[in-house]
């Protein structure tokens, strides 16, 4: 089989004859793997109008649909340009195949949609983002409505999925959140140590680590980790359910997908994220404490003593107080992007990316707004 997978072609042009004649002798295996070299040869074939073209197929050993198509295409093109084409010597079964290809050729039209122009492309993009934004607003409104309805009828809240989400988004995130905060505390103390030592202000390492971790870094760090871990998971889960029509199935059973899928996620994150943040505070301060002892000779007892003075309750609360807002952002964006998935696996991937990017972006924007507001309020 492999030996004879070469298609051959000999073209004899007799321009002296009247009318001028061209003979094409085909041989070998005219198969999808063999015809590649023939393609150029055949498309370069030119017969003057009125000439006679004889295609001799008697030596074709194997013909498949791709080969038959090439043959048909050649015959068709030459007829168009006015040559008198005859195909001879084809085996009966190959002839059937050629006819089959010819009957379907009418419908063969490699259709390619025209790519949009630059202006149309920009318009499309703007339209898409407006559409996305209005969809997001509608989604927030819908979720708020369901949330208030659940407040009035707390029995409608589905606690099982809430607990399940608490477990997966909260408890299972403990190791990674703890490790990263600890390292963050270490890094801050390490960077600060050098500067503080220069002024002999070793003890202020406590203020540095405590304030930075509690007010800004742990809430932000935790929110970003959770957006990457759980926000993406929400999008992927809901997106896949959307594609496999599970969301539609829920609707037909009379269970609101928002009630079952979105609300528990929001509730779970609103509970889990503040707790995770407090845990991250502890881990971060612990990291700073260890660094303070090894680099600045600030012992654990001294560190904790000073921590009580440097940090008051409001510091902790301003940090933790932001996190429910972050939680709502992450859950809403994650779920909304999931619902926007449509059609293909590709789309789930795209929406998941969008979800993580948007969630992190919005969390940081919200954090900046909080800073401004806290500054005004002098907290």
């Amino acid at each position, binding site marked *: 089989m*492999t030996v004879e997978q070469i298609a051959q072609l000999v073209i004899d042009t007799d321009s002296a004859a009247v009318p001028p004649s061209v003979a094409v002798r085909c041989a070998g295996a005219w*198969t*999808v*793997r063999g*015809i*590649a070299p023939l*393609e*150029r040869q055949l498309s370069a074939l030119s017969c003057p109008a009125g000439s006679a073209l004889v295609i001799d197929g008697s030596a074709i050993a194997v013909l*498949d*649909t*791709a080969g038959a*198509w*090439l043959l048909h*295409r050649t015959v068709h093109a030459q007829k168009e340009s006015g040559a008198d084409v005859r195909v001879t010597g084809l085996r009966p*079964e190959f002839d*059937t*195949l050629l006819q*089959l*290809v010819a009957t*379907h*050729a009418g*419908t*063969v*039209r*490699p*259709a*390619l*949609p025209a790519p949009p122009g630059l202006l149309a492309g920009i318009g499309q993009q703007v339209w898409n983002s407006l559409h996305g934004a209005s969809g997001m607003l509608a989604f927030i409104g819908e979720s708020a409505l369901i949330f208030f309805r659940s407040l009035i009828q707390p029995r409608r809240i589905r606690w099982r999925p809430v607990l399940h989400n608490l477990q997966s988004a909260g408890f299972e995130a403990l190791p990674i959140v703890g490790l990263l905060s600890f390292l963050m505390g270490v890094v801050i103390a390490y960077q600060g140590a050098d500067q503080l030592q220069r002024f002999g202000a070793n003890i202020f390492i406590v203020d540095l680590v405590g304030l930075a971790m509690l007010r800004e870094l742990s809430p932000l760090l935790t929110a970003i980790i959770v957006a990457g871990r759980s926000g993406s998971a929400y999008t992927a889960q809901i997106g896949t359910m959307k594609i496999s029509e599970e969301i539609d199935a829920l609707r037909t059973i009379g269970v609101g997908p928002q009630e079952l899928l979105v609300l528990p996620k929001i509730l779970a994150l609103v509970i889990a994220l503040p707790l995770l943040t407090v845990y991250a505070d502890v881990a971060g301060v612990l990291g700073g404490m260890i660094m303070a002892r090894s680099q600045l000779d600030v012992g654990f007892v001294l560190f904790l003593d000073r921590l009580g003075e440097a940090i008051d309750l409001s510091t902790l609360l301003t940090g933790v107080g932001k996190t429910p807002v972050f939680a709502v952002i992450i859950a809403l964006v994650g779920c909304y992007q999931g619902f926007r998935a*449509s*059609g*293909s*696996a*590709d789309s789930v991937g795209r929406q998941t990316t969008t979800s993580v990017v948007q969630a992190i972006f919005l969390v940081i924007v919200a954090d900046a707004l909080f800073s401004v507001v806290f500054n005004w309020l002098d907290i």
Partner: protein
Amino acid sequence: MPAPDRDAVIDIRDLHTRFGKAVVHENVSLTVRAGEIFSLVGGSGCGKSTLLRAIIMLLRPQSGSIRVFGQEVIGLSDDKALPLRRRWGVMFERGALFSSLTVAENVGMVLREHTRLSPKLVDEVAALKIALTGLPADAGAKYPSELSGGMRKRAALARAIALDPELLFLDEPTAGLDPLSASGIDELVRNLRDVLGLTIMMVTHDLDLLWRTADRVAVLDNGHILGIGSMTELSRLDHPLVHEYFYGPRGRAAREQAWKKK
């Protein structure tokens, strides 16, 4: 042990497959000859699709031998499997079209991957394959998610025959189709065999399809083969399950339909 059939395209001997403790195939032996339409039937979960997956090397059985085109496929390395894989086409039950590509790109991808045709010719051949399966010309530019179930099956078939394979595997080619589309598939399967000289192995529940296309049928139950033969031969087989299969209300209707057609 009987001598291997020279005509055999697929030759399975004493196949055993287990998933954990669940036995899927026990002593399964069968032969598919060149140019025939061979069908596997049996109840849900009897291991039909598993057998198909074993033949196309998606699954490794515990013991036995599967020879395709005379080559043992169990334990074959990927390098050695490639020439074999080029010689067959597979149509999956739910199409398994690549959702990020259009139908024409789905078909063209196979051609681009394995041949050196020019992009223009690839597009033309892909469009021809799509036309051969009876899809309208504009279907090529659509994404699989924009197609109906029947059209998706046809598109999957177009991809399976992209390389003009000698052997075609069809997993439930008519499942989930309306009768009209299903009978279109019947005709398509027969045409492919008659015109392109394919050997076709399919897994199906569709009795109409069986009566109208299958040359030989193997009935699988609980990992055993109950019988192999033409539909007429099988319908004479004295086994309660086979009897139920062929003489149940749906079986009878399909059979009468088939006789009328003849």
